[in-house]
């Protein structure tokens, strides 16, 4: 009897050990970097914790991909070099897919997409810029015509944009020589300078612009001019992953697909952006 009991206990212990072993084999531990300064995508709340659309979505995607994810904050201008240096394994930081970035890293399927444009002061002469919606992917000629029409309004003005963003690339491509372009480390900083009147407009994603307008610093701000998307403004926001990490890409791809399919992304998008930012396939 004693022997049987001992065997049973040993068996139970072994079983526990194996199941733990199994769990750790299934749930790969990874670190996910976010900026923590790009509300409502990701930001640091009053308790000093990371919060936002991408934190909620990240937790959901990791659960579906059977990953143990730890979110870490990383300054935007070093976010890709640090991924390559293996300080973390994935980036979820409102980062758009662009051909240029794809030379260096890989992206999963996009989990959100939205237009970009100008954030201005309500009192500014730029409020007279015509509106509209243009896609640089679907109708490049139409979009470029609309951009030409903006130039008389913007001539001699100062534009702000965050360094290393598609917004900055877009501004430099189309408005270099027409405006003075200043580069900021974070969007929070260019929002402060817009409020102070040091820049006449900032180029941002409309999602971030709306969050600024809802905050104290943005009470006199409005979105001015048309909305632009696609092309060099990016092909949607996705998880950034090292090129050789194909397993991780496959796991996230499947998770993103299922979160789009069952409406999870729509729900989270409505919660954080008040609009549906689900990418249209």
């Amino acid at each position, binding site marked *: 009897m004693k022997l049987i009991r001992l065997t049973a206990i040993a068996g139970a212990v072994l079983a526990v050990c194996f199941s733990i072993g199994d769990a750790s084999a299934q749930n790969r531990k990874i670190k996910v970097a976010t900026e923590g300064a790009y509300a409502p995508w990701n930001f640091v709340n009053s308790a000093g914790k990371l919060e936002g659309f991408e934190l909620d979505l990240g937790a959901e995607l990791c659960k579906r991909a059977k990953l143990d994810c730890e979110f870490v904050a990383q300054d935007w201008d070093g976010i*890709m070099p640090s991924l390559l240096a293996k300080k973390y394994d994935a980036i979820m930081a409102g980062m758009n897919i662009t051909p240029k970035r794809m030379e260096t890293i890989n992206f999963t399927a996009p989990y959100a997409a939205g237009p970009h444009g100008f954030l201005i002061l309500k009192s500014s002469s730029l409020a007279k810029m015509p509106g509209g919606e243009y896609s640089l992917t679907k109708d490049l000629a139409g979009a470029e015509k609309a951009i030409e029409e903006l130039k008389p309004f913007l001539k001699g003005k100062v534009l*702000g944009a965050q*360094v290393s963003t598609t917004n900055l690339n877009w501004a430099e491509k189309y408005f270099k020589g027409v405006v003075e372009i200043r580069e900021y480390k974070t969007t929070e900083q260019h929002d*402060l300078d817009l409020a102070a009147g040091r820049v006449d407009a900032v180029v941002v994603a409309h999602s971030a612009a709306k969050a600024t307008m809802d905050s104290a610093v943005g009470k006199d701000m409005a979105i001015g001019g048309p909305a632009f998307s696609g092309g060099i403004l990016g092909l949607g926001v996705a998880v950034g992953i090292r090129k050789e990490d194909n397993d991780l890409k496959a796991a996230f791809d499947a998770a993103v697909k299922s979160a789009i399919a069952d409406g999870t992304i729509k729900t989270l998008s409505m919660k954080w952006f008040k609009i549906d930012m689900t990418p249209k396939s």
Partner: protein
Amino acid sequence: MDFDFLGETFVRLLSGIPLTLELAFSSVGLGIVLAVALALMLRARFLPLGWFADAFVFVFRGTPLLVQLFLIYYGLGQFRPELQEMGLWWFFRAPYYCALLALTLNTAAYGAEIVRGGLQSVPAGQIEAARAFGMSGFTLYRRIVAPIALRQALPAYGNEIILMIKATSLASTITIMEVTGLAHKLISETFRSFEVFFAAGAIYLIVNFAVTRLIWLAEHRIAPDLTLAERTAELH
């Protein structure tokens, strides 16, 4: 390491040197005027002047330059209507002037202490002797105090100039594209931080090498006996 890329980066960063040097030398130039004024205030018999100088040095030496820069740039940016009323907004609107102001006030605080140390090192006997010769006030300062104080203060001031050249890199945090600003931009375009920072570091090193030589020459001119004594001591 990719040497072609390193070379390219180096050349691109060179275009930031004029702005780096302009910021460094303007702030050191303006800062030294303020520093001498503050050092004289520290020694003034009228106490409130001394208290003011003390408080100034305490605040600007005791807080990080980056915090001062952000307070002046983003902090004062929130008082635009008041500054406009005072007619000062044109100054605070420009990132360059804000950086120049922060650097100047910071170096003035350190400089004031260096100048004060130099003034204090003037032996009392020399001053007494000068007074015995009938010198007083400005003549006494010009002939006796200033030359001795300058000789004492110059090595420490040289150090401060080098620190200021490096401190200009903080101006990149308020959109100024000097060497470090350009380096950050290049990294964000290429995602290669090692080569870019390596090139940026080399540029600061070269600039500071030239500056240390110039300071040494100045020291040698002002106090040939001291530098000569150093060199003979090294030989023995």
